[in-house]
């Protein structure tokens, strides 16, 4: 499931209005380091607008997952463009390091056997 819930279009309008102000030179066609690195790394060149929309999507998703709205805003602001786009696309599928209390039932037995066989080391931490 790919999520693409890029906020309301008023945001896009704001982004378009703000975008030209972000370059400090009067010539807007300087290729910044982030864009240059992106091209070197053969990523899709991220449009500024994609990152702005992704930031909004991530902020909204964090809030839905129980993060305080003010915190979510600051947290989304500290992510890089590439990180934002990755999170906007599949936040739920990424590893979320937590603990093993969510492991239940059959999984418990499977892990216990593997543990005894020395393949995993979940239970060492208890």
């Amino acid at each position, binding site marked *: 499931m790919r999520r693409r819930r890029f906020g309301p279009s008023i945001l896009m309008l704001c982004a378009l209005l703000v975008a030209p102000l972000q370059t*400090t*030179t*009067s*010539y*807007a*066609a*300087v*290729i*910044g*380091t*982030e*864009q*240059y*690195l*992106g*091209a*070197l790394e053969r990523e*899709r*060149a991220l449009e500024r607008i994609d990152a702005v929309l992704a930031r909004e999507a991530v902020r909204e998703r*964090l809030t*839905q*997952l*129980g*993060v305080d709205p003010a*915190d979510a805003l600051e*947290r989304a*602001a*500290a*992510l*890089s463009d*590439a*990180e934002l786009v*990755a*999170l906007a696309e599949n*936040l*739920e599928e*990424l*590893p*979320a*390091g*937590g*603990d*093993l*209390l969510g*492991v239940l039932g*059959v*999984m418990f*037995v*499977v*892990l216990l*056997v*593997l543990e005894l*066989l*020395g*393949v*995993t*080391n*979940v239970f*060492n*931490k208890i």
Partner: protein
Amino acid sequence: MQALAAFRDARLSRALTLALAVAALAAAGCAGTPRFDGTSLPAVELDDVPFFPQTEYQCGPAALATILAHEGLPVDADALAPAVYIEGLRGSLQAELLAATRRHGLVPYRLRPDPDALFTEVGSGKPVLVLQNLGLDRFPVWHYAVVVGFDPTRGDVLLRSGTERRRREPLRRFLRSWARADHWAFVAAPPDEPPVTADAAGWIRAITDAARVLPPSSVDAALDAATSRWPAEPIVLYASAVRAGEAGRWQDAARAYAVLLESDPGNAAARNNLANMLAEGGCFGEALAQARAALAAVRVESPLRPAIEDTVDTLERRAYVGAAEPDYCAAFP
């Protein structure tokens, strides 16, 4: 009820069979990975790395607090939870640990995904935050911990992990759990101290990703550190030139691009930016020549092409053949 119990037994025995099969496969999979036996590793233990025992699901904030406090920041796990914990996922995302590190004024540097880099960092005095998958590829159990040492006499990795201040994990077990998390690891570096295992491109990437959040003086310090450590690296020259341009120092920027282009004349992005800097100084004739050369050098499918076309278009409207230009323009070929 008996039928249900029998059904449960059947499921259980199927699960056990599956578990054994998976174990066999996993063992086979491990045999193919390159061996890192740690025999060459020296003993190291960063005893002064603080410890924050995790509460439920909160290994992310705890591990992050560990490495940030080691850098002298007044943080603890509770204070960091609002910055990285997600109740709905009962955990913390990797990208958010990096982002929170930036918000505390440090540069998160992702390590090369190999044990050498990890233990070299620890040997240099840096605790390393790692992601481990304590379960299986199909049934992951994600966990963040901080590597603080290695004990060669017993072959154990030493970690701040969960509720254990000094957890020992046999090297091979640790490496397997780390490999199942794609060898994900990072250190928190002060802006003026690139980590010992850092390379120029990785450090510039790390600074660039942090630039929106760090104070401008920190970004400058990080770039200066890059320049003194990798003075001739093209990516360092490029990033420094962009920074000079952003600060309005177009002549410094233009000179840096010119140096870069001497060794790498086909660098269309640098040539495009040089054109923009020259235009900034009113040297439209040379700017247009550089912009056209950049367009000729860039591949048709390059994602950078639109910006270069933009430069050419803008300059074609501004440049007049034979128009008077400032004298200093002669200094920029």
